[in-house]
């Protein structure tokens, strides 16, 4: 019998779980490294597959971003090449892990129902995995069972609400897009960047520039993430337009910073050749002016962004999505 892979492996220390599609059944393969156990669900018996959203592990993503920013900061601060490579690799690995986790999208728990059983499908942990699973599985089940025509009256038993659970009112229900805190992180990073830059430029505190560079990398990662799937992270309408302006300003800031570094390097090289005093960023007029503009612009951008996010923080479900409360059917 030929099996088609339906999901990636969900790995753990002791093994993995994976879903496969056979000619007439779904196979759950649970591997314990040196043995495999199989559970078969015939397509004719599958009544339903459900997925329910699960909370995002925000603390984990924030921690990963924070540690990666710290690693990038260390990379800029240390002198030894080996240490720079180490911190760079660690920072990149942590940041990419966090980005990958976010890109995979909303977490969910998937369940397969038959007449006599209810099985949690462990490998399906994201809504995107669930979509891929059903895309492959639905035609196979439809070929065996046909297509369902929902007729509530024909249901022999209808689901009852959980005891003591009143239906929600419309105004109680709110959309909670996955990763909604990402725009918030972006504008916090912009504000933090402004503070770090001010510490370097106005306070003549060298480490401030290193911290600012770290925050800039964080901003770029977050912007790329938001630009790919803005709706997933709750950006729409005017807020989306404002995000594009923010992204453009961050890109311009990067270009100006590169120009600044190149100009500074040229001046230092020229000073070395002519034997004059080595110039610093604080001695160059245009750099100071550009820096002050950047600090003011970032502060304004961060505050406005946070304010806009706060004003549009929750969206009540529109009437079109309103659902009647569940009532026991006759």
């Amino acid at each position, binding site marked *: 019998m030929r099996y088609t892979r339906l999901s990636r492996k969900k790995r753990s220390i002791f093994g993995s779980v994976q879903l496969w599609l056979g000619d007439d059944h779904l196979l759950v393969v649970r591997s314990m490294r040196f*043995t495999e156990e*199989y559970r078969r669900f015939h397509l004719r018996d599958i009544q339903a597959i*459900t997925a329910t959203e699960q909370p995002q592990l925000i603390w984990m993503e924030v921690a990963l971003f924070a540690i990666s920013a710290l690693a990038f900061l260390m990379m800029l601060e240390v002198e030894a090449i080996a240490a720079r490579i180490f911190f760079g690799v660690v920072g990149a690995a942590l940041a990419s892990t966090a980005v990958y986790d976010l890109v995979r999208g909303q977490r969910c728990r998937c369940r397969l129902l038959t007449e006599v059983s209810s099985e949690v499908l462990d490998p399906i942990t994201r809504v995107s995995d669930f979509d891929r699973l059903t895309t492959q599985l*639905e035609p196979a089940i439809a070929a065996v069972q046909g297509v369902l025509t929902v007729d509530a009256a024909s249901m022999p038993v*209808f689901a009852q609400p959980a005891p003591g659970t009143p239906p929600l009112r419309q105004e109680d229900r709110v959309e909670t897009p996955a990763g909604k805190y990402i725009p918030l992180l972006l504008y916090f990073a912009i504000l933090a960047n402004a503070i770090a830059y001010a510490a370097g430029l106005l306070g003549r505190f060298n480490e401030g520039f290193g911290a600012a560079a770290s925050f800039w990398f964080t901003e770029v990662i977050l912007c790329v993430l938001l630009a790919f799937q803005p709706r997933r992270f709750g950006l729409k309408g005017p807020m989306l337009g404002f995000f594009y302006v923010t992204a453009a300003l961050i890109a311009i800031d990067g270009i100006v910073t590169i120009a600044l570094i190149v100009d500074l390097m040229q001046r230092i090289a020229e000073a070395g050749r002519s034997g004059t005093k080595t110039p610093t960023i604080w001695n160059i007029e245009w750099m100071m002016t550009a820096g002050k503009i950047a600090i003011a612009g970032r502060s304004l951008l961060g505050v406005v962004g946070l304010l806009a996010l706060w004003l549009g923080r929750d969206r009540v479900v529109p009437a079109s*999505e309103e*659902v009647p409360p569940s009532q026991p059917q006759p």
Partner: protein
Amino acid sequence: MTGDLRCDSCQGGIPPELWNQQQGALCPYCGKRSWTRVFPAIQHTVAGQSPEAIGSESESSCFFHPRSRAIVACDSCGRFICGLCDLDTGSTGGHICPTCFTSPKAPGSGTLLDKRRVLYDSILLGLNLGGFFFFFWPSLITAPLSIVLAIWYWRKPRSIVPRYTTFRFVLVIVLGLLQTAIWIALFWSVANSPGRGSRGPAL
């Protein structure tokens, strides 16, 4: 359980109006979004078949229930079985009697009905690499042992899903040969070292 779809978060019932929505739907009780794909099997109640009594002496009876009429022969052992004993496993194993279904080594019941398989390739790869990287010297024993076992288990039942089993067996044999070659070279170099046999300058 028919028609009983519940939210996995609050266990509240999901009404049919919310089934098969492409974008999912919010649970009316806890407000969490859930996606449900419901199939026609939810409208059916599958009941076990009752065996029919034998009408005349000429009719075949079930091996397990002599008073019941046989409806099919077991695809594994050939015994006649009634509607109660018939376990229809589809294309996996066909019609199987309860004895063959529970027997781990039923001839022809189809290895496809197996509930568990041992992954000899993984065990041997672990043995080979473990012996080599765990202070090296155990590979003196594990390297040739893994070669012998890889050949021994080559034809044993493998995983029923696609897997690089052959590649792993070949890898075990190649690594085992390499490690054995290293040990032979070590012994040879020790045996032929220039200092061996000389017990100081001859007087």
